[in-house]
């Protein structure tokens, strides 16, 4: 088999007590998922998940489902998605098409505020919130992960540029790059 190469392949630079911990999130599969018109509920039944119908991120076990457009989602980390959705959903394979960066730590929101024009206050952007926006002129999906921390996803080809911008935003707060 062929060896997998992640978009960033970062070298860890751990720093104790860093304000921001950065890492590349790897997902074993990525896909765009569509429901036929009016088919959102049926798709949700098939997946045992309440499909979000506005910008949001929900967890499906270790996988994440992000609303991207009406009856359209980005699903990260569900290799068996096509089988599970069956005829209720249409799956377009996007393995490796996105680079996902995790920002965690006490200054994660502050570092992100240097990049995205999104109100990240817990009152308006609690866990599960998501937004499509620009970071450093790069189109991104941003979400507050249901399991904590923030995630930024961009097209794989922008990965290095986005990573450099995130590093620059995080560096003043103490940056730990984690594997």
């Amino acid at each position: 088999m062929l060896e997998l190469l992640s978009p960033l392949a970062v070298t860890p630079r751990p720093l104790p007590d860093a304000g921001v911990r950065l890492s590349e999130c790897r997902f074993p599969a990525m896909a765009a998922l569509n429901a036929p018109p009016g088919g959102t509920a049926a798709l949700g039944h098939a997946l045992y998940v309440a499909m979000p119908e506005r910008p949001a991120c929900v967890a499906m076990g270790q996988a994440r489902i992000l609303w991207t457009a009406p009856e359209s989602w980005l699903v990260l980390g569900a290799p068996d998605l096509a089988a599970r959705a069956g005829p209720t959903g249409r799956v377009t394979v996007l393995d490796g098409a996105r680079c996902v960066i995790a920002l965690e730590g006490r200054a994660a929101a502050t570092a992100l505020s240097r990049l995205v024009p999104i109100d990240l206050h817990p009152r308006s952007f609690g866990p599960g919130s998501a937004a499509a926006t620009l970071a450093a002129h790069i189109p991104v999906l941003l979400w507050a992960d249901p399991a904590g921390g923030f995630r930024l996803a961009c097209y794989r080809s922008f990965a290095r540029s986005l990573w450099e911008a995130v590093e620059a935003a995080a560096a003043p707060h103490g940056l730990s790059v984690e594997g």
Partner: protein
Amino acid sequence: MRLSQGGLIDRETRLRFTFDGAEYHGHAGDTLASALIANGVKLVGRSFKYHRPRGIWGAGSEEPNALVELRGGTRREPNTRATVAELYDGLEARSQNRWPSLNFDVMAVNQLAAPILGAGFYYKTFMWPASFWEKLYEPLIRRAAGLGRAPEGPDPDHYERANLFCEVLVIGAGPAGLAAALAAARTGARVVLADEDAVLGGRLLADRQEIDGAPARLWAQKVLAELASMPEVTLLPRTTIFGVFDHGTYAALERVADHLAEPGADGIRQRAWTIQAKRAVLAAGAVERPIAFSGNDRPGVMSAAAIRAYVNRYAALPGRKPVIFTAGDDGWRTAADLRDAGAEIAAIVDVRAEVPAAVTVLLKDVRQVLGGRVAGTEGAKALREVKILDAKGNMLNLPADLLAVAGGWNPTVNLTSHQGGRPVWNDAIHAFTPGQPPPGLTAAGAAAGRMTLAACLASGAEEGLRAAREAGFDGQALTLPRADDEPASLTPFFYVPGAKKAFVDFQHDVTADDIALAAREGFRSVEHTKRYTTLGMATDQGKTANVVGLAILAEATGRTIPETGTTMFRPPYTPVAIGALTGHHAGRAFKPVRRTPLHEWAAARGASFVEVGPWMRAEWYALPSEKGWRDSVDREVMNVRNAAGMCDVSTLGKIEVVGPDAAALLDLAYTGMLSTLAVGRIRYGVMLREDGFVMDDGTCARLAADRFFLTTTTANAGPVMQHLEFLHQVLHPEWDLALHSVTDAWAQISLAGPRSREVLAGVIDPGFDISNAGFPHMSVAEVTVCGGAPARLYRLSFSGELAFEIGIPSDLGAAFADRLMMAGAAHGLAPYGTEALGVLRIEKGHPAGGELNGQTTARDLGLGGMLSKKKDYIGRVLAERPALTDPARQVLVGIRPVDRAATLRAGAHILPIGVEADTANDLGHVTAVTYSPSLGHMIGLALVSGGRDRIGERVRAHDPVRGADVEVELCQQVFLDPEGERPRA
């Protein structure tokens, strides 16, 4: 002179600084201006036009005069107001706009030429002859007029952009701002309190006033301590809100490290904030205005309120023997503070004949000239004498080293104008107050025309709570602290006519006479006067000048000030460095870059890269033995023609169209019929714009009945996606389909050349038939490679050779490319870059960037056969317009030089032989050229009028820019294998 006690400076911390090379000392808490005053320095600069000696006028960001150059080297920073530059140890400052020195400035001769340098002198003096402007007049003017020098190297510091969200933004942290912030913050709302000063408190730091029976600054400290303890409050000292934009967006500049010699460990010098506020309270206070009189710009003539700031906050006494010239009660406070600080008041001149006894009693031992005027000043580089005209018309010449001018207060309404709100004249305070502020913003305190301390506190508390309530929070009204309404009566007074220059706009050297002249010459509109005289157009936007100028214009034109109207203000409130707006995006981070999954793979094999839009693409792979790029490219091309090459084509736009109505959408979008395409087959397609011109070309592969895979050119990937989304969402929302960009999902490799099938056989898993019969030209299949890796195989050719494209998931791209190279080693496989790709396509006459230029039709490009007559499609009707079907249109043909050794150049014009090289004879232009290693000479493509009927004709490729004129022969656009047999082999 530094007072022996008082002030908010830290006398323990002694800071060294230089001004024009001379060394001085100040203290922490000083500004450069206060330190210069404490050291007795009066002359700090030369004026813009007349090079007149100037001193310090004010104590804040409105300063028109004391512009200096700070720091050195690449940190050199011109035109900084000394009044807002915080002192730090080692600060280097220099005066500007003088040569050879501040004391002896050659250009001061401009003053002698002053009669011809009046309003509109550019327009009058430099009109003729026109050709002299660029060569003579402009360089002369630029040398004579001007301010500081920009640094010569790149800025070494970092700048940061940041976003901030709040319910209530409070602009200004004086008494009104502090009260507003406290009232809003106690509701639980998120509050941002921003002030341009390093210390929050505003005039409370500068005036000797009491709140709750104690010095007012103690109240400010108490409020700030409470605000700082609240988690939802953000205090932003050293931060200027410089612009108001739509929907509650405020732009702010935080001077993070301007008060340090160099930024701290994070390297950040300034931070540009974008603040999104549901409501904002403008508590920006007011600015004292000058009075125009002869010689009112002499060093030593200062704002009376600023003098109070120097005395009370900085313990710096600007003069020992002051005269006070006032139009209201406020000047008397300055006189009292100066006297209490030890100055010997020469006189207080009040333009009012009657002054309330409660005010005059403050200075009963001082010479009071009521109903008087200051008629002029004397002194060379510093004030020496003040000429006073008393109420009876007697002239008094009093020796003085300081003249405090209190012309009244102008509320700082600037931000309320940023969305078009025109300030309105308020007869109660004789100044402009906010007219219609931007939605969501209200003014409070002095900015709203509430000119006393008690009124400021009350108005701030009220507006702060109101703002929080409007943003969805609620709380108790603030219990107002005890404070007084100080005497604040005023008479409107702007101008003392006299013989010498009376300055209105100090920074642009606009005088009262200039404004009168403009009025006489018919520039009666305030907007015309502004532009003709440049009143208020300097870097300070006329913060001190405008109202005085308007008043003089009103008088000169026999109107009231409200009838005359006012000009407006625009962002930025104070100058902002471009670097701060740039933020992170400097140098290599100027714009984001897209890299393919094979980027590092190619770099490791010696590829050099070229920018194609946002993408980095490998342009060629040089071998150590090769002397120049042509060697590499010629080798790569011949390797494809004779053996096999592989090229990273991942940047091509890739779109999947999924759903039962996908075919219907593609029939609408492409000129050809796609719904009849069989599953497993590929068709070349052209899309037109609505106007009938070609939008893009590419291939369309049918993966399943309800799933198509399209490719676009690299440049048009985004526009094609938008176009298709438009067709779906706007024209046919009822169609059941979805569009997905899959560009980044696939590392796409083109494998081309007569031996490509043998190479492919080495990586494809057993069981997939890639023979010509089993997998003919224009086929697509899902396959596995290298022992089970999923891949998509396309039989497509751009090079004109037998060729395949392999799509492999991006994460596997590099490993697959390695395996492919191993499999191809025995067959001569070598990577090739975009330059060889370009040569291959020109040899095959395929249109690309130079031909798909938005001005060509399908017929122009030789693609007329692809225009279906059986169905409708976007652009069909307009493609039949007479202009688009004109037989004389420029159409695509090939060219080759008659002298095969000659060089062709893209962009050259095609002209008949033996005619004048002019546009009337122009037949078209050359769109692409290359040296063809297959043919051994240069070839090109050209758009030539009626070109297909001219095949075989000889014409000229005329290149006036680079001075070449080459005879060429028009030929078919396909140079190699015109029957197209090779890709079908």
